[in-house]
């Protein structure tokens, strides 16, 4: 509970202000004589004094008593209007969102047309026509003009949750349509309903105070708006009687602040992503010790062919409870020109986090705590296309030390990313030509129109698209073509390093092959290095030159693709490539027992030991270091250098405690 309050401080502050105001209005009659609120029960126009704490007005009313009595009716109007508005909104929003069709069309038509009408004008007309408006009636009148907002919000939420797979599952479970609506869809709407209620309350209070200040609305009761109206009637401002209009304005402001804080924190509770974005963006470098980098980056040879080298990179995530976990932990490797490294591992092993860290795109609660990403450049040279030129000096730069402005220039031009669902990264309302031009213009300011056109046409041709595609919109292209356009944007500025995060996971095998072959062709043409992230070993085997295996944030094996797959050294690599079904033989399917460890609960020693069939005592206590075991073969495992290759699997190693069994005993359980 305290955790909740720490996360949403606005919620307590808002509630405290609102409760304080209410308490004042309820308790004041107990300590002061509220009968003084009647006309001429006190001397008129007195300034605040010991006897009359907030002074009196021109008609001899004690202002403290008036204030105390006017808070509750004002809030009552707001709450009535909010409740009625939300009831109408919930009913119409649910029905029209869930059942759709003509009902939906009608509701939306009415709501939209009412929203275009200036509601305050209608309110003025209604309240001048109706005699003797009570607080309740005032609430109702305001509600009739305020239900459209909640209706639209709730309808939109229903529409999105109606399409979720869990409603389909509920139908398969035999639920009727009404049960789906009330038991599956409605509960997920509650936070939205609450936030929407609070904001309608404040809208209603605003409208009613505005009307009353004009002398309309409920006039026979004390409300904050009416007090302001009378102060205006008697020219309190001109006479300098601030105690007359000041306190009600202050109380109204307080109520608004409280309601705003409540509604904002309810929004946050409903949509936790907002908290994360609001968190302060920190890119902190603590002291010099953090960047102490061991230079044991596994690579073929560190020479001028090295495009990028990652050294001892560490990305830490922090929870609200204060625990930390390293999603990427001491990863080092380097890549040569033209090399494509396949990065494999189960989901949750830190593949995407590593890629994001290399682009310096880690957002809170994640943080890069140590290490560097060194991007090589030829110093003083205009073009990076001739690396063999002898009179130029090779220099490398830790891009994690760059500020955001310089980093933005590196992205796309130095390192570019082909994201996971690349086809969805295109802007649907822009022509392909303009999207590519945008990318170029963001980095090169003085490109002529003709130069731009040639660049775009060359780039499109390089990914196997006809130049006519430039004039099309994304929706006029097929999935594979969109993927190619995304690849074209990622490579048009000739980056040194391309990071492709499962670039073909949404495509079928035929398309996968074509897209991947094209990407490799472009990469070879640019002589860029590439990191290819994937969990499908077959795909990586076909598309990469070398492999890096990631487990629980650590690099456990690195080497040439052919050698690693033919004779994996790390037990994890072996199990990973074995779990892939092939077309060679129909063998019993096997997976890797257990699950990757949780980020905040990492095992001691070697992180793979709880799932490893080869684990022995040393693995539990000591973390294995990356060691060189052959030409460009690195492995982090205690089996080496004692063994020269992965030994035969020890038979019948019992499953580690707490892990899920990997062979399912259907046969035995099905009989009873």
């Amino acid at each position, binding site marked *: 509970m305290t955790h909740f309050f720490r996360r949403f401080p606005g919620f307590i502050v808002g509630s405290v202000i609102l409760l304080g105001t209410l308490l004042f209005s309820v308790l004041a009659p107990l300590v002061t004589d509220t009968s003084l609120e009647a006309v001429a029960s006190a001397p008129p126009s007195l300034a605040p004094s010991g006897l009359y704490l907030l002074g009196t007005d021109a008609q001899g009313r004690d202002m403290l008593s008036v204030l105390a009595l006017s808070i509750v009716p004002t809030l009552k109007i707001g709450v009535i209007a909010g409740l009625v508005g939300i009831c109408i909104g919930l009913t119409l929003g649910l029905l029209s969102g869930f059942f759709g069709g003509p009902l939906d069309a009608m509701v939306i038509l009415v709501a939209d047309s009412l929203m275009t009408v200036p509601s305050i004008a209608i309110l003025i007309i209604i309240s001048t026509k109706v005699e003797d408006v009570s607080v309740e009636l005032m609430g109702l009148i305001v509600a009739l003009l305020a239900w459209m907002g909640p209706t639209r919000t709730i309808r939109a939420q229903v529409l999105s949750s109606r399409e979720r797979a869990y409603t389909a599952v509920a139908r*398969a479970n035999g639920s009727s349509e009404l049960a789906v609506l009330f038991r599956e869809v409605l509960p997920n709407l509650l936070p939205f309903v609450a936030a929407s209620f609070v904001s309608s309350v404040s809208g209603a209070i605003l409208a009613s105070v505005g009307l009353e200040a004009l002398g309309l609305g409920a006039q026979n009761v004390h409300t904050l708006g009416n007090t302001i109206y009378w102060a205006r009637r008697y020219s309190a401002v001109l006479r300098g009687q601030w105690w007359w209009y000041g306190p009600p304005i202050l109380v109204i402001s307080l109520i608004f602040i409280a309601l705003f804080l409540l509604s904002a924190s309810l929004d946050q509770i409903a949509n936790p992503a907002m908290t994360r974005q609001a968190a302060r963006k920190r890119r902190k470098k603590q002291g010099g010790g953090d960047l102490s980098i061991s230079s044991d980056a596994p690579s073929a040879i560190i020479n001028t062919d090295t495009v990028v080298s990652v050294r001892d990179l560490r990305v830490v995530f922090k929870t609200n409870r204060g625990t930390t976990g390293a999603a990427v932990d001491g990863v080092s490797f380097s890549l040569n020109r033209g090399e494509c490294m396949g990065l494999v591992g189960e989901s949750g092993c830190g593949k995407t986090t590593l890629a994001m860290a290399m682009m310096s795109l880690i957002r809170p609660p994640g943080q890069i705590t140590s290490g560097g990403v060194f991007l090589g450049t030829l110093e003083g040279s205009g073009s990076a296309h001739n690396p063999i030129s002898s009179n130029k000096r090779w220099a490398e730069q830790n891009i994690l030390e760059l500020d955001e402005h310089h980093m933005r220039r590196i992205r796309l031009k130095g390192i570019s990313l082909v994201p996971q669902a690349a086809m969805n990264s295109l802007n649907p309302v822009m022509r392909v030509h303009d999207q590519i031009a945008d990318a170029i213009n963001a980095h090169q300011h003085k490109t002529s129109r003709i130069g731009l056109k040639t660049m775009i046409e060359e780039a499109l041709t390089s990914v196997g*698209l006809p130049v006519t595609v430039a004039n099309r919109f994304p929706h006029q292209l097929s999935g594979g073509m969109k993927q190619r356009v995304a690849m074209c944007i990622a490579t048009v500025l000739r980056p040194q390093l391309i990071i492709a995060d499962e670039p073909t996971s949404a495509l079928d095998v035929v398309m996968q092959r074509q897209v991947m072959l094209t990407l490799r062709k472009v990469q070879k043409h640019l002589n860029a290095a590439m990191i290819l992230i994937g969990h499908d070993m077959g795909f990586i085997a076909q598309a990469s030159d070398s492999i890096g295996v990631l487990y629980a944030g650590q690099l456990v094996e690195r080497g040439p693709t052919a050698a690693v797959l033919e004779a994996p050294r790390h037990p994890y690599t072996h199990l990973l490539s074995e779990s892939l079904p092939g077309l060679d033989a129909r063998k019993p399917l096997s997976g890797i027992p257990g699950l990757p460890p949780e980020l905040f609960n990492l095992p001691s020693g070697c992180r793979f030991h709880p799932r490893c069939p080869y684990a022995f005592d040393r693995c539990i206590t000591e973390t294995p270091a990356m060691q060189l075991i052959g030409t460009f073969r690195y492995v982090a495992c205690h089996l080496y250098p004692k063994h020269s290759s992965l030994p035969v699997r020890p038979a019948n190693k019992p499953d580690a405690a707490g892990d899920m069994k990997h062979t399912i005993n259907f046969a035995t359980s099905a009989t009873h």
Partner: protein
Amino acid sequence: MTNLLEVRDATKIFRNGPFWARDTTTAVDKVNLILTAEQPSITGIVGESGSGKTTLAMLVLGQLRPDSGSLIFNGKNIDAMTPAERRRMRREVQPIYQDPFASFNPFYKVDHALTEPLRNFMLANSRLESERLIHHALELAGLRPAETLGRYPHQLSGGQRQRIMVARALLCKPTLIVADEPVSMLDASLRATILAGLQTLNRELGISILYITHDLTTAYQICDRVLVMYAGSVVEFGTTEHVIREPKHPYTQLLISSIPSVKQTQQWADTVALDVDQISPDSPKANSGCKFAPRCHSVMNNCWTTAPPLSQIDTDRAVACLLY
């Protein structure tokens, strides 16, 4: 003996746009499929995205009505069923969806998905019995009830959640499970165990399974028969060994040659020319002949004019291609 499920010339056409510029897509085009009751089998439906395999699944689940043709479940036409029969079919044909993350309502604990079918189909008489049934189903799906029940979906892994979905389907005592890409969102290491689970359900409990996928390797591992779809039509159908070992239809051949292999000896050859006609299968040219003709490497003149019928070429294989 009546068949468990008969799909007869089922056709589903989707219409888009206003009536004056109506755009029609034939998602499923005269598909025939028979699942026998006495021999529960795993039938794979394979095809690329947009080939109509999910639409076919929705027809079988009764979520969509065919525009023409019929679906016959246990000898009864779906359209002519009484409400009680319809309810029984709704219980006996159970889906497993692709996304184990979206399949759970985040508001409830995972127990909700398991108690609902028992409540709705009135399968348990007491609280104790429903508890016993749930425990049994979870164990069948390879889960430990104590580690699963009482948790929220986000506290479980994708593999565990998909197993709960299998357990959920089992609680309904199904005769047919329609698994729509059940493992495509899971890691390769978890796929194997879920698929082995489906296989055992078929063998031990006699539940027929329609396994819908775009991944031929998993289909090869678990299916008895494979049906290959292209643009809404069946192009090849036969036993798994036949279809995958010696594919006859050029499309099946293309699919199989595109499967990435871990073996470096079987390299992805650069044989597939990368011209643009081939990379846009989403817009098959309207022709009266074979839909695959624009992409086919052995296309003949009459392919453009004559639609090939699905014809039996040996005892357990049918191909829709004019080459045979």
